[in-house]
C-alpha cells in the first residue's frame, strides 16, 4: 500500500464517518434504532433462542413502568429541568393507595384505584413544581430532596413491610392478557394488557408536546427560558405543569408495578432512576433541555430493557452483569455526545 492510496482511503473513510455522524445528528432517533438492531443481531447470533415471541413479550412487559417514568422525565427534561424523584413518588403512591384500598375499600375496582394513583402522583409532582418555582433552585437539587422526603414519608408514616394480599381488582388487572401463546417447550407466554397503558400514555405525551400550546411552551422554556419569558410564556406555570404530569405518570406506574408484581413493597423501584434517565438521553433528549421526542424516548427505554434482559441469555456471569450494563450506557452516551458536538 503506497502513501497516496492510503491517504485517499483514510480521507474517504473520514469523510464517510463525518457524514454518518452528521446524519445521526440530524436524525437522533436512528441512534437507538441502530443500537437495538446491533444488540439483537449480536445476541441472536450468540444464542438463537433469543428469536422467540416470549422474549419480545417479556421486554415489552418490563418496559411499561420504566417507559412511564421515562415519559415524565422527557417532559421535564424538555422544559429544561431534571426530575429524579419519580421512583420515590411511585413507591409512596403505590404503597399508600394499595394499603388504603386493602384496609378500607377492598372491593374497589381498578379504575378508581388508577385514578387515585394518578391523583396522588399529580399532587407529589405539583409539590415538586411549586418548590422549583418558589425556591428558584435547580430542579435536580429540589427533586433529589423530595426523592428522600417521599421515601422517608412512606417508610415512616405508611409502613415498611411488604404484603401479598393486594386488592383483588389490582391482582386481576395484572393478570389480564392481550395474547397467550404456548411455546415449543410447552409453557405459556403472555402479553399483559397493561402494556396498552404505556401506549396510551405515549400518545397523550406526544399530543401534548407536539400539538398543543403548552407543548410549544415546554420546548421554548427548555431551550431559552429568558427568551421564552420575554415572548410571554409563563415559565412557572410550565414548570408546574411538567412536574405534575411527570408525577401523574409516576403514580400510574406505581399502581401498575403493584398489579404486575402481585405484592406491595415500599422498598421497590429505588435505584431505577438512573437507568430511566439513561434511556431518555439515549433516546435523543438533550440533558440540558429543549429537545427530545416521545418516539426516541420509547426506543431508549426499549434499548435499556433489552440489554437488561439478555445478559443471562448471552451467558454473561452475574458478577459481570452490572458492569456490562454500565459500560454499555457509557459507550452509548459517549457516542451520542460525539454526534451532538458535530
Amino acid at each position, binding site marked *: 500500500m503506497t502513501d497516496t492510496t492510503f491517504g485517499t482511503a483514510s480521507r474517504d473513510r473520514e469523510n464517510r464517518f463525518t457524514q454518518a455522524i452528521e446524519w445521526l445528528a440530524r436524525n437522533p432517533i436512528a441512534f437507538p434504532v441502530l443500537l437495538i438492531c446491533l444488540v439483537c443481531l449480536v445476541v441472536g447470533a450468540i*444464542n438463537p*433462542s433469543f428469536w*422467540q415471541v*416470549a*422474549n419480545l413479550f*417479556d421486554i415489552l412487559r*418490563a418496559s411499561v413502568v420504566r417507559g412511564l417514568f421515562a415519559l415524565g422525565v422527557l417532559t421535564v427534561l424538555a422544559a429544561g429541568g431534571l426530575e429524579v424523584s419519580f421512583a420515590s413518588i411511585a413507591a409512596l403512591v403505590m404503597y399508600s393507595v394499595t394499603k388504603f384500598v386493602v384496609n378500607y375499600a377492598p372491593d374497589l375496582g381498578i379504575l378508581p384505584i388508577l385514578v387515585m394513583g394518578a391523583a396522588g402522583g399529580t399532587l407529589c409532582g405539583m409539590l415538586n413544581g411549586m418548590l422549583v418555582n418558589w425556591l428558584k433552585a435547580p430542579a435536580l437539587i429540589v427533586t433529589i430532596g423530595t426523592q428522600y422526603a417521599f*421515601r*422517608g414519608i412512606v*417508610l*415512616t408514616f405508611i*409502613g*415498611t*413491610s*411488604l404484603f*401479598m394480599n393486594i386488592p383483588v381488582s389490582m391482582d386481576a388487572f395484572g393478570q389480564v392478557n392481550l395474547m397467550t401463546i404456548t*411455546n*415449543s*417447550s410447552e*409453557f*405459556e*407466554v*403472555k402479553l399483559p394488557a397493561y402494556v396498552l397503558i404505556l401506549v396510551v400514555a405515549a400518545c397523550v405525551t406526544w399530543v401534548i408536546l407536539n400539538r398543543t400550546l403548552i407543548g410549544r411552551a415546554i420546548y421554548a422554556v427548555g431551550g431559552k427560558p429568558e427568551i421564552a419569558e420575554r415572548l410571554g410564556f409563563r415559565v412557572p406555570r410550565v414548570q408546574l405543569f411538567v412536574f405534575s404530569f411527570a408525577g401523574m405518570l409516576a403514580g400510574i406506574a406505581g399502581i401498575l*408495578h403493584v398489579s*404486575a*408484581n*402481585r*405484592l406491595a*413493597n415500599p*422498598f*421497590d423501584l*429505588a*435505584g431505577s432512576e438512573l437507568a430511566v434517565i439513561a434511556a431518555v438521553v439515549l433516546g435523543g433528549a438533550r440533558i440540558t433541555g429543549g429537545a427530545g421526542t416521545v418516539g426516541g424516548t420509547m426506543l431508549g427505554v426499549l434499548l435499556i430493557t433489552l440489554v*437488561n*434482559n*439478555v445478559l*443471562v*441469555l448471552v*451467558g454473561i*456471569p*452475574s*458478577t459481570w*452483569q*452490572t458492569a456490562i450494563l454500565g459500560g454499555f450506557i457509557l459507550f452509548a452516551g459517549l457516542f451520542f455526545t460525539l454526534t451532538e458536538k458535530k
Partner: protein
Amino acid sequence: MGHSKLLLAGVSALAMVCIGLPAAAADKEIVTVVKVTGENWFTRMEEGVDKYGADTDGITARQVGPAKADAAQQTAIIQDLIAQDVDAITIVPMDPSALEGVLRRAMKRGIVITTHEADNLQNTQVDMEAFDNHEFGAHFAEQIVECMGEKGQWTSFVGSLGSLTHVQWADGGEEYAAKFPGMELVSPKNESFNDANRAYEIAKEILRTYPDIKGFQGGSAIDVIGIGRAVEEAGLEDRTCVIGLGLPKDTGPYLETGAVDSIAFWDPLDAGYVMNILTKMTVMGEEIKDGMDLGVQGYNNVKVSAGPGEGIIVRGQAWVDVDAANYKEYPF
C-alpha cells in the same frame, strides 16, 4: 407540722432518686442493630429482643435499624450508639466489611460487640450463626436434587453478590449437587437485588434460555416469590422444584399453588433472643463453651470455633423447613 411534712416528702423523694439511680446504672444496655427496620423478618427479630429484655433481670434490650437497607446508614447508627456509650451492641451487618472500622473503634471504647450472619468479620467478639451456611445451602440442594430425581438443569439466586451468606448458600448447594453427575448447574448466582420483580424477570429469562430447567434455589427471602410467580405464569408448577429461603406469610400463596415447593428459614425471634444471650454472657465475662445448651430450640448443642479475628463463632442447627402443609403454623 407543714414544714416537717414537706421535709419528709423531700427526703423520701431524694431517697427514691438515690435508690433508683444505682439500679438504673446497674442495668446493662444491649442494643440490637438490624439491616433495616420494618421488614417482617426484623419485626419478628424485635419480638425476640423484647422477649429477652422482659425475661432477663438487669438487662435493657432494644432494637434499632435504618429505614433503608444501606450499609452507610447502619454505620451511622453504630457511631451514634458509641457516642451514647451503651454497654453492648449486637449487629446484623448489611455489609460486614464496611463495618470493620467502626466496630474496632467501639471495642476500643470498651463496648462489647457481637454479630449475626457475619462469620468473615474480624472485629467482633462473638459471631452467632443459626447454622453452618454451607450446610444450609447443601440442605436446599439436597431437597432440590431429590425433587428433580437427581438429574437435570438447575440454577441458584442470591440477593446480591455482596451478601456473603447468600453466596455461601449458593456455594454449599453447588458443592452438594456436584456429587450427582446428572445435575447441571446453569447461570449460577443470579442477583435479584432483593427485588421480587427482578427475581421474576431473571427467572423468566432463565426459563427462556434453558427451557428444560427443573430446579431453582432461592437466596434472598423474596427470591422464591419472584421465581414462584414466573413458574406459575408459565404453568410449570409440577415440572419445577423451587426451594430456598423464604418467609411463611409472604410465600404462602405460592406454596399453596405448588409454584414454590418448600422454604426454609431460621426463626428471627430465636436468633434475636440468642444474640442477646451470647452478648450478655460476653458482657458478664462468662465463657461460651462448645456443646453448650443455650435453652432455645435449635441452639441446644452449639458449636464454637475460632473466628477470623480475635473472636469466636457460635453455630446452632436452627433451620426450619416449611411447605404447603405447615406454613400456617408460623405467623410471620
